[in-house]
């Protein structure tokens, strides 16, 4: 009997250890100047700055960083650009001091309990210019067990998507800042509206962006607005449930809607249940944000495909 109890305790401990197997996760992000291309009619190639996991290759948005609750994440940020930059993971890090050109800095994040969620990282310097130029991305934190729930004991999902919504004002911001000029930040008339750094014509066919699944599945959609304008996203096909708003877990029964508004620098997590066959758009409902320099549907739009 005593032996049985001991071995049971041993099993329990082993089980706990495997669930809470905290890891150290290391990322390196290289800051560089480059360009972003919006394909299709109305598209363009314009100057952009970004964080990248590949030195010398600019990415907008920056790479998706992932970790589990309990992990220690070390993010080394290398500034290969010729002006100051920083790296702030909203809600996780507070050091907003500059990394000088040629310098680097290591940010250590200890993901404590209840940290599962969706975090927007960005460069907060230079009166929004650095962010507007493309310096943003997402850190996704899963629960300690790495499973498909929004948080430990939270809503379950079959697959998840990350949607980074943003805009760029090519003539007044990107062209000017990219050439080393001074942006008049008082005027902002973005003419490119991006979904994961893409125009709608690409985002509607991008496997990492579209909600494409089978009936009966549930998608968890992690949405961040890295832009400077509010974005109002409208889902066809079904209503979603808002399970998290700006990092705050909501309580069941969750607010349902077909439109969610995200102010600049806000985040939300919604679940979307795939309940009827068909192809449906998801698009921003603010007219001009649906375009690429005025070309319809090459703005913030993607597809929901239920099979």
């Amino acid at each position, binding site marked *: 009997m005593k032996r049985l109890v001991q071995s049971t305790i041993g099993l329990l401990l082993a089980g706990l250890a495997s669930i809470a197997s905290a890891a150290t996760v290391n990322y390196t992000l290289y800051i560089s100047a480059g360009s972003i291309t919006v394909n299709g009619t109305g598209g363009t190639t314009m100057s952009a700055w970004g964080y990248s996991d590949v030195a010398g290759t600019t990415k907008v948005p920056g790479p998706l960083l992932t970790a589990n609750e309990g992990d220690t994440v070390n993010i080394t940020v290398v500034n290969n650009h010729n002006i100051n930059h920083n790296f702030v993971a909203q809600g996780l890090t507070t050091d907003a001091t500059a990394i000088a050109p040629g310098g680097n800095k290591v940010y250590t994040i200890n993901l404590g309990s209840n940290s599962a969620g969706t975090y927007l990282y960005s460069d907060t310097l230079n009166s929004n210019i650095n962010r507007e130029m493309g310096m943003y991305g997402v850190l996704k934190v899963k629960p300690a067990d790495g499973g498909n729930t929004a948080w430990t004991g939270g809503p379950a999902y079959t697959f998840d998507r990350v949607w980074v919504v943003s805009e760029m004002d090519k003539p007044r911001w990107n062209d000017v800042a990219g050439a080393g000029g001074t942006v008049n930040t008082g005027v902002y008339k973005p003419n490119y509206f991006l979904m994961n750094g893409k125009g709608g014509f690409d985002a509607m066919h991008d496997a990492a962006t579209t909600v494409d699944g089978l009936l009966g599945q549930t998608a968890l959609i992690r949405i961040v607005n890295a832009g400077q304008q*509010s974005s*109002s996203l409208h889902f066809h096909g079904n209503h979603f449930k808002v399970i998290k708003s700006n990092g705050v877990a909501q309580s069941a029964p969750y607010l349902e809607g077909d439109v969610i*508004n995200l102010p*600049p620098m806000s985040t939300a997590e919604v679940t979307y249940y795939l309940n009827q066959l068909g*192809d449906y758009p998801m698009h921003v409902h603010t*007219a001009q944000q*649906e375009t690429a320099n005025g070309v*319809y549907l090459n703005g913030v739009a993607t597809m929901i495909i239920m099979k």
Partner: protein
Amino acid sequence: MKFVKNASKTAILSAIATLGLAAAAQAATINQSVCVRSLNKTMSDGASVTFWGFTSNCGGMSSGLLPGPLVEVGVYPAGSGLTDTLNLTLNMAMAPQEQAPYNGHTIHLHGADVATAEDGVPETGAPVTGDTYTWTPKSNETGSYMYHCHVHTVKHLEMGMYGPMIGRPKNTAGVFLNQLTHDAATAYNYVQNYVLSTVDPAYHTATGDSTVFADYNPKYFLISGNEGKTTAAPAQTLAAGVNKKVALRLIGIHSVNGTFSVKDASGNAKPFTVYTHDGRALATPVTMTSLDVSPGQRYDILFTTPSTTGTWYPQVTYKNLRDGTALSTAYGRVTF
């Protein structure tokens, strides 16, 4: 605007219905047709702006309405097994339209989770030459929706191609209830639609893939098609009684941020209670004095008029998408 003279009239109607006289009214099919016509509107600064509006009057010389005619569908209590079905037909005869590739029109039943074939989206196969769009709302789908064209929406919504669509509770005898949902706490004496929209005249003359559509500069700010720039010249009015429940259906088809509030003549904000969002009842109604309504969203709210006569001004402050600075306020008026 729906006007209910008194509660006893409703009670009598309900009683008649309960006796079975209205049994045939159960599970109704609502067949409604709209066509598209131009209308020229003289704005507050004297400028004339051309709109395209839906109307039920499909005569050749008719004008479009801004917003389009009300579409109302019954929603039955949970467990009743009853449903109403809407068949909304778009008659394309003599409709003003753009050149290809944005020729034609559709109707999207915004917020109704219909099948792809009923969704009115040309990019997923919807015809643009006229069609009938069908929706059978479920018991939990009471609330405000809208219908709008889904062709080249950046222009066509701006042109005025939208109207209110309401999932309105019915009892099991098929009689419309003066409630926002099947919760009796949402009963109202008066109801009015507040359709929020904004107008950039440049979008009205531009066509096709124009760079005009990348830069939105709204000049006119509407509630239900009217500017209502001052409390003295409100966009729409409601003559209510004291101690009465007033329901407003806030339907956002604007392209900037918007904040709704109710204020008295001195500018004091009055509390109201939000019962539904996007055609779904809130788990817990929320009482507040200021509510953001973003493009595409709908909210249904209720307030009770005071016991002494007076005037309140439901209003929408339209705001810049970037920093939320106020662009303009449009006023409604409720007297009691």
